[in-house]
């Protein structure tokens, strides 16, 4: 489903991605760990060309993303959902308009079909009552849920999550993680999740990779990573494990 080959990206002299290569199989949920500034969000943005990579190749559905023209890229993007760190809801639109926005412009749906999709998406995130609210009236957790609803409303094959639980309290974080996991299984999507949240990763992931200095330093299941003797991983996960124990 997704294959990344030798991806490089730097900002001036700061090398952020240094020859990154990995594969994600269909319906697999992969988590990307790493300290702040290791290029996790940059990786997601390069994958769908929100940022241009310096070199390398990204294949999604066997198509080399970097070789697509704008029209082909937009066509591909219709099958990709992206949950941004701050949800990125359109401030000037109601929740309904936010959800309808990609449908109106990408699909030839009748009014009834559109209403049905909007209600279904809101039901999936348990926020039907928020349909006519403005984003400013929603809490952080609600915004994330609506952001998730907007991402899945187009029924994407691939979901990219950029720190889906950052800035939320532990209970809401867990709720969002469980929700993501349920939707992943219900809609049979492939997903790549960038997160610091070990609990979120445990709930969602089939496999995880750890980035350091723009490279993958370890790959495996969450249990393999957390029980590793590698000093870097021990150091990285120690705080997360303490926090996780406090939560559970």
């Amino acid at each position, binding site marked *: 489903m997704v294959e990344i080959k030798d991806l490089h990206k730097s900002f001036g002299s700061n090398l952020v991605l240094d020859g990154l290569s990995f594969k994600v199989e269909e319906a697999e949920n992969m988590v990307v760990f790493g300290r702040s500034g290791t290029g996790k969000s940059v990786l997601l943005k390069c994958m769908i060309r929100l940022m241009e990579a310096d070199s390398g190749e990204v294949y999604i559905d066997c198509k080399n993303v970097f070789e697509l023209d704008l029209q082909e890229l937009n066509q591909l993007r219709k099958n*990709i959902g992206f949950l941004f760190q701050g949800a990125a*809801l359109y401030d000037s639109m109601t929740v309904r308009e936010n959800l309808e926005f990609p449908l109106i412009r990408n699909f030839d749906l009748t009014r009834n079909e559109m209403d049905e999709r909007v209600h279904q998406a809101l039901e999936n995130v348990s926020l039907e009552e928020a349909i006519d609210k403005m984003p400013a009236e929603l809490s952080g957790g609600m915004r994330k849920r609506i952001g998730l609803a907007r991402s899945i409303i187009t029924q994407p094959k691939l979901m990219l999550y950029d720190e889906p639980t950052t800035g939320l309290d532990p209970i809401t974080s867990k709720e969002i993680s469980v929700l993501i996991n349920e939707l992943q299984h219900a809609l049979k999507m492939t997903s790549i999740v960038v997160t610091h949240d070990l609990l979120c990763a445990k709930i969602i992931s089939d496999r995880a990779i750890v980035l350091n200095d723009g490279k993958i330093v370890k790959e495996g299941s969450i249990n393999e990573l957390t029980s590793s003797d590698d000093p870097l991983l021990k150091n990285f996960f120690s705080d997360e494990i303490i926090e996780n124990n406090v939560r559970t």
Partner: protein
Amino acid sequence: MNSLIKDKDNPVEFSSSLTQFFATIAGLSIFSLRFFKDVFLPPYEFGEIKKHMDELGIKTMPIVTVTGFIIGLVIAMQSQPIMKKFGAESFLPSMVALSVVRELGPVITALIFAGRVSSGIGAELGSMRVTEQIDAMEVSGVNPFRYLVATRMFATTFILPILTVYVIFISLIGAYIAVVLVQNMTWDYFIDRVIFSVEFGDAIPGVGKTFIFGYIVGLVGCYKGYTATNGTEGVGKASTSSVVVSSLLILIFDMVLVKLTLWIWPTVK
């Protein structure tokens, strides 16, 4: 030692400002080309254009009404004693009309429009950029340039001439009130003198150049907002620099267009 460091640093700062200046010019040119490439292609966002015309144009009316009225009133009040001194009071309507139609109406309306609209567009798009809303639009397969930028630029280009005609009319009312306060003149006579003195070569270039001013306001506001970086600080900078750059460009283009107008219509009174 400090002065040495300063001397050493100044050329760098100067070179950086110069680079930024040329980068802005290049950025505006590319943005402009992209606008002409995108604006004629479907899907057409008529709903958005109408919304922006209302938001950016109709809501600017109160401030331009007050300004237009005061400009007309003040010009007439200031000029009346001088005209009286030369025994040319009857030329007052013509003088006010020509000043307002050819220069003051278009330029002052454009500058007010730039102050209100360009900064608003810069702040709105800048905030959408830093909160990743523009990225979200792009990811959903929608062309954010066409949806956010082309619609706003189209709206500003066509709403400013309408506002300008309105301001000219309001200014003439202001001028008439000032005239009536000090001398006996009927509205019919006042308007008759205005129509008599204002020719095609005065009105068309005067109002015509506001299409370009409106385009500049939309272009600069959209460019500054769309390319904003560095969080809320960047949004503030985008908003402020939108007003500064668009006001400056309006005045520079006005100078060029006046020269061009006099070249095309050399017989203009």
